[in-house]
């Protein structure tokens, strides 16, 4: 069980949205994390330093929150080696093949009313829900 957190989640979502809007207003770019990260890997197509700076900000975020709130950031992460390696490979491969992830398709793409992003979001939601259903209720 995790606690339903509508207020904190809405607030956090709005902060993510503000970041996405400002990235478009200032740099003219979509705030898609898989696109940002994959461009840090070869074959290179330029624009590495600003993307590295963005990722640095992401990595620093929990520490800034902990400094500000004085409470630790709690999380429960599976430490099953095979599961986490397979999960990482699939998320990395799938997001590049499908040109986006939860942020690029699920937030920025839906905000632009992109048909491709709507199809991608519906697809990954469906396979993710099916995967969790299989693991938690069938196996």
């Amino acid at each position, binding site marked *: 069980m995790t606690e339903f957190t509508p207020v904190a989640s809405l607030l956090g979502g709005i902060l993510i949205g503000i970041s996405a809007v400002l990235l478009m207003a200032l740099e*003219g770019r979509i705030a898609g994390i898989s696109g940002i990260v994959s461009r840090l890997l070869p074959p290179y197509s330029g624009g590495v330093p600003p993307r590295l700076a963005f990722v640095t900000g992401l990595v620093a975020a*929990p520490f800034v929150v902990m400094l500000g709130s004085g409470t630790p950031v709690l999380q429960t*992460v599976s430490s099953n080696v095979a599961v986490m390696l397979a999960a990482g490979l699939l998320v990395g491969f799938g997001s590049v093949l499908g040109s986006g992830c939860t942020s690029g398709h699920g937030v920025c793409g839906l905000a632009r009313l992109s048909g491709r992003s709507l199809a991608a979001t519906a697809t990954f939601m469906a396979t993710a829900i099916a995967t969790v259903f299989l693991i938690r209720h069938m196996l």
Partner: protein
Amino acid sequence: MSLVVNLLLGLLFGIGLVVSGMADPAKILNFLDVAGTWDPSLLFVMGGAAVTTSIGYWFVLRRPRPVLSNKFHLPVRRGIDGRLLAGAALFGIGWGLGGFCPGPALTALGLGEAGTLLFVPAMGAGMLVAKLATAR
């Protein structure tokens, strides 16, 4: 200037992920567990983010160009094809397995959980393979 802007926007994005609870894979997996311990929080994150972005883009994309760049870099691919759907389907399976997608995984990296330290390099490897396989 661009570096500072990107650092701060990455920080803001990451703070949004932490505040919303999305840096915790347990919340993602419970969102996806619609037949069990369903936690609808993620709907509020995605909804809040998408509505904010939609309103913001409406104003921003009416401007002739972004402040720090010569043009808006919007996706150019059109049409729903097999590559898009196959990629999204595989992505979803990985998301359902680990409860991590790229943003939350990187945001959680410094917290140093063993699963995160396995997931992030594997994600990089998956991205690299897909980039090399689709490069022409």
